[in-house]
Structure formats: structure tokens, C-alpha cells
């Protein structure tokens, strides 16, 4: 029993990563009807920005300039990484996707893949082909609860991720921007006629998605402190699978499917040899999609007008 609960904790942590990233795919899809295939690499960029902010702040501390306590470094790292990665996301939208708004969707998909490769190779060119370790910002403490060992890092990751998802949900429900995003999800043809600037909304959507990916990046760095230029590929694609599984464009679906994916992966590895983990986990998902091709909360047919 304790053995299983241990895995639940791990599944929740992985689920948080997937869910945070999947939300970015889903929001952008629902508002602009395109899959931002550079999103996994935006997660990587977010992790690196977090790395530089954190090491920078720690260096400031050890140089005796401003010695911040580690928790403050973590909070600042999260905030700055979110802000800066949001800017990266907005640039991707402005430079990569906005000129293609009326182009066939395949062009946008290709552009996304190329932006992703650009990020990866830029990273290689600028930082060299080496792994970098993310400094641990909070001292890991293990708690023993009913025979299960839970670290404070895991608790923090899961709790903050859930809080951010809740905040996003409230944002979409309560603000005028959220209302405009929901309307754009149906069609972006009439929304501007209600006085809503759709370019601002597009930028905002990318900013939100990228900000969440940055949080996932920083947390990933705390849980698995080795960063490398291609780290966004596999995690990014898996999160994309979660977004599809949740139903294209569904924010709630993306979050739930992200966690489900974490659970499937972890528990498959409990039963089967871990070398077969992805093979079996993704066969299960393939099976689910065979019976529910539009995911949990997607619509069977999306005959939406495009602008």
C-alpha cells in the first residue's frame, strides 16, 4: 500500500509537468486554432532562463551584494522566468505565427517545428553541447507519512502547479480577457467587432502558455537538476499528447489528461519493466484515442471559421 502511495506522489509530480505544458498547447489551439509545436522548446527556454536567473541571484548573494534567503531566490526565479519566457512566447507569436494567420495550417505547423529547432540549436551554439545543473533552491527534507516518503520539493511542485491551474481557470472565467479568449475559441471573426483587439489577445494567450511552461521548466530543474538543449523534445511531445487526450482546446481536459498521463507512465513502470514504460503507456493512450478520437472534452467536429 505504502509502495503504491509512493508512486502516486511521483505520478502527481510528473502530472504537474505535463499539465502545465499541455495547458499552453490547449490555450493557443483554442484561441488561434494552431498547435504551437515550438511549445516544448519554450519549456526548455523557460528552464534555462530559470537557471540563469537562479544562478545569477545566488552569485549576487555569495558576492555579498544582496544575500537573499533561498526561498526568496526561488520565488524570484519563478516570477522572472515566467515573465521573461512570456516575452519569448509573445515574440514567437509575433514573428512566427502572426504573419501566417490566414495561411494554411500546415505552414504554421512547419513554422512551429522550425522555431523549436532554432531554439535548440541556438542553445547549442551559445551555450555549447553540455549539460548544466540547476542549483537546488530549497533544501530537500523528507517527510515520512504512513510509510511514504514525501519531499518538500514534490509537495511544493504539486501544490503550486495546482494553484496556478486554479488561477488560470479563474482568469478565464472572471476577467474580460478570459471572456474574450472563450469567445475567440468559438470564432475569431466577430470578436474584434465587439471592440476586442485580437492581436493583443493572441499575444496574451502565448504569454500565459509560455509562463506556465516556464514554471514547469523551473520545477523540472528542481526535481531533475540536469538541463540540456533537447530536454524539451520528449517532455514537450508527451504534453502535446496530453493536450490531444484532453480534447483539443479544452483547458480542463489538458490539465486532467496531464495528470492522467503522469499516472499511466508511473504505474505502467510499477507493473512492467521500465524499459517498456513508454511503449506500453502510449499504447494505452492510443487505445483510448481509438475509442474517443476527439479526447475527453473535445468536440467531435470542429467546423469553426478561421480568419
Amino acid at each position, binding site marked *: 500500500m505504502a509502495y503504491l502511495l509512493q508512486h502516486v506522489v511521483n505520478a502527481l509530480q510528473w502530472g504537474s509537468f505535463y499539465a502545465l505544458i499541455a495547458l499552453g498547447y490547449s490555450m493557443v489551439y483554442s484561441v488561434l486554432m494552431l498547435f504551437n509545436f515550438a511549445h516544448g522548446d519554450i519549456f526548455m527556454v523557460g528552464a534555462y532562463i530559470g537557471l540563469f536567473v537562479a544562478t545569477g541571484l545566488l552569485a549576487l548573494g555569495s558576492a555579498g551584494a544582496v544575500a537573499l534567503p533561498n526561498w526568496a531566490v526561488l520565488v524570484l526565479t519563478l516570477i522572472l522566468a515566467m515573465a521573461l519566457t512570456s516575452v519569448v512566447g509573445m515574440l514567437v507569436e509575433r514573428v512566427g505565427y502572426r504573419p501566417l494567420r490566414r495561411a494554411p495550417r500546415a505552414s504554421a505547423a512547419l513554422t512551429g517545428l522550425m522555431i523549436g529547432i532554432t531554439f535548440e540549436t541556438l542553445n547549442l551554439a551559445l551555450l555549447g553541447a553540455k549539460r548544466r545543473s540547476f542549483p537546488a533552491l530549497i533544501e530537500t527534507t523528507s517527510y515520512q507519512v504512513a510509510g511514504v516518503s514525501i519531499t518538500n520539493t514534490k509537495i511544493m511542485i504539486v501544490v503550486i502547479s495546482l494553484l496556478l491551474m486554479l488561477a488560470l481557470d479563474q*482568469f478565464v472565467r*472572471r476577467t*474580460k480577457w478570459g471572456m474574450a479568449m472563450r469567445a475567440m475559441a468559438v470564432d475569431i471573426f466577430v470578436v474584434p467587432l*465587439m471592440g476586442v483587439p485580437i*492581436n493583443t489577445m493572441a499575444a496574451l494567450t502565448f504569454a500565459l502558455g509560455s509562463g506556465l511552461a516556464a514554471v514547469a521548466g523551473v520545477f523540472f530543474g528542481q526535481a531533475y537538476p540536469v538541463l540540456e538543449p533537447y530536454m524539451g523534445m520528449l517532455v514537450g511531445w508527451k504534453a502535446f499528447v496530453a493536450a490531444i487526450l484532453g480534447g483539443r482546446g479544452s483547458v480542463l481536459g489538458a490539465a486532467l489528461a496531464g495528470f492522467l498521463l503522469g499516472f499511466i507512465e508511473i504505474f505502467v513502470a510499477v507493473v512492467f519493466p521500465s524499459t517498456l514504460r513508454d511503449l506500453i503507456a502510449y499504447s494505452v493512450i492510443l487505445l483510448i484515442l481509438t475509442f474517443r478520437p476527439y479526447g475527453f472534452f473535445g468536440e467531435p467536429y470542429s467546423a469553426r471559421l478561421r480568419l
Partner: protein
Amino acid sequence: MSLLKVEGMTHYFGGLRAVYNYNLEIEMGQIRGLIGPNGAGKTTIFNLITGMYRPTSGRIVFDGQDIVGLPPHRIAARGIGRTFQNMMLWRHMTVLEHVKLAHYSRIDYGLVGAFLGTPRRHRQEAEIEERSYELLRMMGVDRFAQKVITELPYGAQRRVEIARALATQPKLLLLDEPTAGMNPEEMIEMVDTIRRIHGVLGMAIFLIEHRMRVVMDLCETIQTLNFGEVIAEGTPDEIRNNPVVIEAYLGKEVVT
């Protein structure tokens, strides 16, 4: 000075000439009509005026300012509201949300307000909600306010769409076939409603219609469009008896 003045507007889709040398002048508070066979370019004219397309050439002056090239949301904010032939409504959203979102440019409380519920948010939300209800009442659909739009009968959806357009406080309201798909009874009610909102709010209205009854009843003057060109313009009576108009609609009589 007229509220809207369109001069020499021409629009091509690639090599296809959709609108040619179109002129229009609407005074404050006037009701004008636009008729013509399918594909004549009527909706294209609406799309050009509202900034969804940019005319190939020509001038559009609204309220003293040239609006060609302005993005649609700015043109909307200047006071042009519109509805669509095939009702572009946001399924999943409630009737009230439709009308509230149309107040977008007037909502100025930010994130803090939305999350913490500042007095400013409460006051503004209350104001906007009250105004929204008033518009829905005016259109006779306030009882559906909390319902999701797709649960409403067709005629009521049309009315919500007009309420949404009114919420942007237009000085000029463009109605694209407001009675499309309605039975004769609903049609008469709609004509009454349009006349009533015009009486209360006093904005200018420019409407596209297929049903002669509607345009004849409502409009001071009517333009007839065929193949993107105005072929006749005048009062309802003049239009009704104009042989060119009859020919455009019914085809040329073959004398044998």
C-alpha cells in the same frame, strides 16, 4: 455632415470584382436598406465598412474620420455595430456573457479587480449587467439571460445577436438579414422591434434584406445592388416599380 460617407469604393477578391464604385451616404438616425440578388456583394460591403476587408480603392469616412485601414476593433469602438446573416454567436457562452463581452472596451478594471473583487469591479460589473439586461429586455429576450445561447430558439438567438451589437453603443447599426429564416409572424415582430430600438436609441441603421416587406416597411431609401454595382437607388415605391430592379431579381423577360 453625414455620419457615414463611402466614396468610390471598389473591392477585388483576386481577379473577381466584388464591389465596384460604390457610394453611400447615411445621415444620423436614418434607416437605409440594401437589397440585391444572392452574391451581389451586399455582405462584402458590410465587411468593408467594418474593416474586416480593406477596400482595393475608395474612401470610407465615418463620423468625420477616414476609417479605411483601421483594425476592426477600432472601427467597432468608433461606433459601428453589426450582426451577421448566419448569426455568429459563441456557443458554450450564456446570453448575458454575449452582451457583457460586447462592453469589452468599457471594462477597465484589471487583474487585481477581477481576482480580489475591488469596489470598482463590483460597481462596473453591476453597471454592465444592468445595461446588458436592459438591452436584452428591449429585444424581449431577458428571460433567457442565464441560458447558454444554443438552448434558445432560433428567433431568440437573432435577438440576442442584435442586443450584442447594441451593447457596443453603435451610432450606426448594420443588420445583415435580420429576418432570415423567420416565419411571417416572427418577421412582423422583428420589424416592430427594429422600429422600437430605432425610436429609443436613435442610431442610424443600414440593413440588408431579402424580404421586400421588411425593407419597404422600414427604410427611407433603398439601394439595389447587382454584380457589385448599385443599379438603382430611391424610395421604396420607386424601387418597387423600377424595371431594372425587377429584371435583376426575376431575369429579363423574353419577348416572343
